[in-house]
């Protein structure tokens, strides 16, 4: 009667031997030449580019789809893609695109003017038969399109209700990617799980929570991709992503924490690719409420905070100091305005002149959030710097969605709130968040800033579709807003992507839409 004795012992033994056996299971060796494993910060929620809003969705979609135009490799200037050329009507109210001939979607549907019409009408027309395949949260990128006219099979004209210069960059954004109308009709609401585009890779399969597999589209209208297969692995925990990269479980990964980027830079076998992105991290001042209703106090705060120290120590050089509302990644649109220097002495003088003393200020900060970098550490640094010039700051932190709901409704009791935006056109952020017509609930001007000159410049920049003319207007906006200081301008991040160094053909453009058609394993 040793049955139970044996059972307990053998259970333990079995457990141990299973452990032992399993170590003999096949190890992951070198991946075959053309399978690239990409780590993603999140599992995409939809691969329908008109439905998707998150950066992980876009990283995959960029390889499946193409838009009429695309962002450049080194800048944010729209370049030809599915449209080989285009003309803009003199008054800026109509854009005519000549489409690339002979292009087919992965399912064999021809890409033509009718397909373009289907794409925009699905997003914009409330009575469209495939409207239920939405919602389309970013459709307002194209809200000025009044009509899509099919001129002939390969010519399509977008007619606008008013001139809207950011249209081209919005078309290059994933919301402007072209989806196969036949596939939408076939898959309906599940199209986002069975994406069909014209891009360099075809969708193969999606194992929930594990991987999304794309394979090379051999009949691509331009040059087929080099890699045979792309596997995207969502790995939410950044430490796990780092571990997978160092153990060979993935070949490349975007969006690693600054500390780890520094480590990979020092370690052989990895290369760190970086690019400044059109991102801006700032603190909104409540300009309706003392003391920030006084421009001297807002400037004093900009002088008091040591942005260079934040960039170097908190962000570990993964960002640059910002000067105004137009990110430096927009090139000449940002002009040559210098950031506020770190000058606590001058800040104290300004505060004394404004008669500010004994205010208890509230700074709202999210615990984390899209584009927010290290919001709590940065809040603490800002709190310390403002404290050094005699401004007593209390930091209140919230979970991201709670935070957004609160800040987007407009600042009431709070004096300051952290915010970050990544945009694709110099128009977007100032137009949505600095105009007086964009006070909540109509826009994101949560600090209630108002300057009629800025309003007028932004409106007129939308009417100018000549690049040089637009740039001049944004340079003036940059200077005016810098001087008015409705925000504390802190930093623009550089996006990073870490890849194993045997990976070639990696291009990281400022749009951070990483197209892997040129990537290969050496």
């Amino acid at each position, binding site marked *: 009667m040793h049955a139970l004795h044996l059972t307990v012992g053998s259970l333990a033994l079995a457990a141990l031997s299973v452990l032992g056996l399993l170590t003999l299971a096949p190890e992951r060796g070198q991946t075959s030449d053309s399978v690239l494993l990409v780590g993603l910060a999140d599992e995409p929620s939809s691969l329908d580019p008109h*439905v998707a809003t998150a950066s992980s969705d876009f990283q995959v979609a960029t390889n499946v789809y193409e838009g009429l135009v695309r962002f450049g490799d080194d800048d944010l200037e729209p370049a030809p893609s599915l449209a080989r050329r285009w003309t803009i009507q003199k008054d800026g109210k109509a854009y005519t695109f000549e489409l690339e001939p002979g292009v087919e979607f992965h399912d064999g549907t021809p890409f033509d003017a009718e397909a373009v019409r289907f794409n925009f009408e699905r997003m914009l027309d409330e009575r469209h038969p495939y409207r239920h395949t939405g919602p389309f949260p970013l459709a307002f990128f194209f809200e000025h399109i009044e009509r899509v006219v099919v001129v002939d099979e390969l010519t399509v004209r977008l007619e606008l209700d008013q001139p809207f210069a950011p249209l081209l960059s919005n078309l290059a954004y994933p919301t402007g990617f072209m989806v196969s109308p036949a596939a939408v009709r076939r898959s309906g609401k599940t199209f986002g799980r069975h994406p069909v585009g014209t891009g360099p890779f075809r969708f193969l399969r999606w194992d929930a*929570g594990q991987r999304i597999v794309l394979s090379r589209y051999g009949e691509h209208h331009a040059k087929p991709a080099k890699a045979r297969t792309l596997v995207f692995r969502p790995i939410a925990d950044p430490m796990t992503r780092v571990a997978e990269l160092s153990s060979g479980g993935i070949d490349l990964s975007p969006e690693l924490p600054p500390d780890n980027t520094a480590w990979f830079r020092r370690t052989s076998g990895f290369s760190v690719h970086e690019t400044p992105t059109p991102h801006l991290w700032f603190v909104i001042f409540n300009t309706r409420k003392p003391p920030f209703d006084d421009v001297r106090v807002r400037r004093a705060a900009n002088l008091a905070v040591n942005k260079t120290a934040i960039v170097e120590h908190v962000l570990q050089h993964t960002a640059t100091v910002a000067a105004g509302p137009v990110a430096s990644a927009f090139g000449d649109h940002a002009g040559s305005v210098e950031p506020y220097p770190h000058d606590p002495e001058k800040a104290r003088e300004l505060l004394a002149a404004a008669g500010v003393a004994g205010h208890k200020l509230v700074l709202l900060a999210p615990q984390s959030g899209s*584009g927010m970098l290290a919001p709590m550490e940065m809040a603490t640094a800002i709190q310390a710097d403002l404290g050094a010039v005699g401004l007593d700051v209390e930091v209140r932190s919230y979970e991201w969605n709670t935070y957004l709901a609160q800040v987007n409704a407009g600042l009431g009791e709070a004096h300051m709130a952290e915010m970050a935006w990544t945009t694709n056109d110099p128009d977007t952020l100032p137009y949505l968040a600095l105009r007086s017509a964009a006070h909540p*609930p109509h826009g994101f001007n949560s600090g209630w800033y108002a300057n009629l000159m800025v309003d007028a410049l932004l409106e007129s920049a939308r009417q100018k579709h000549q690049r040089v003319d637009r740039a001049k207007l944004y340079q003036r906006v940059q200077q005016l807003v810098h001087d008015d200081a409705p925000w504390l301008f802190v930093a623009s991040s550089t996006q990073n992507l870490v890849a194993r160094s045997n990976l070639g053909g990696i291009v990281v453009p400022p749009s951070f839409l990483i197209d892997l058609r040129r990537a290969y394993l050496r």
Partner: protein
Amino acid sequence: MIRYITLRLLSLVLVVFGVTLVVFVLTSALPGDPATALLGPYATPERVVDLRRSLALDGSLPERYFAWLGHALSGDLGHSYSLGRPVLAIVLERLRPTALLAASALGLGTALGLTLGSLAAVRPGTLCDRALTFVSLVGVSTPAFWIAMVLMLVFGIELGLFPVSGMRRADVLDSSSLVTVVDIAHHLVLPATALGMVAAGVIARMTRAALVEVLSTDYVRLARASGAGESNVRYVYAFRAALSRVVPVIGLQAGFALGGAAYVETVFQWPGLGKLLVDAIAERDLLLVQGGVMLVAVLYVLVTFATDLVQRSIDPRVDA
């Protein structure tokens, strides 16, 4: 017995109803909703109102709850806002990996816990007992996610014996079922060990305490006095009596394994329910949270139920 089972099933219905109601009210009370989460930084109050209308989120709370309940009774748990797919399909797809992980962790924890606990109990006060007690104390007091990271660092990166994360090799598209099973088992070792350690600690401590106590009872002395062999006394009579007190603890650990899986799943990128629910809460995906929590609640009630039945079959002293 039939009355007992009927009562338990009735309580299951009540628990599920209560859980869904609480989840519905709590998630609705959170600031932000699926509309703000979907719009992200572009959520102006105006756009939120529009999107809320198109997602049918503009009804009152009781209206929406009863609409949901009506559909749920007919087996339709609604569509996830953030994933745009039927909730039932999503949670069932994620349930299997979680069940596999929790069951392996519990199996490992139980086997280790019973073994270590019995070894310690039969030699109370010795060095062996103290060492085992210490080890189980460490197991009980160390958070699973920390064990997870240490295991990953040592066995995943330094020694390279096990994959760092995931459930399958990501670069293999087609493989035979045997290779797939071995592959999944290979990936399962680290997360199951991380999650199982805590259970092992708790079960070992409980086993030791129960067995020590049983071994000092009169009926054990009687068994010894009537000439039963020592190992027979220890591992048949005493162990069985002690086991009836350990089984409910194992049942409780099953609940913890289901809950604790959320951390471990996040660290090891295990494609299970826990990770899904954490994301769903951040996305304010009310219906997905609802469906997932309901499923976990049902499972938990069923496990407790099963535990009771097992306990009854081991120990006739437990009343029907």
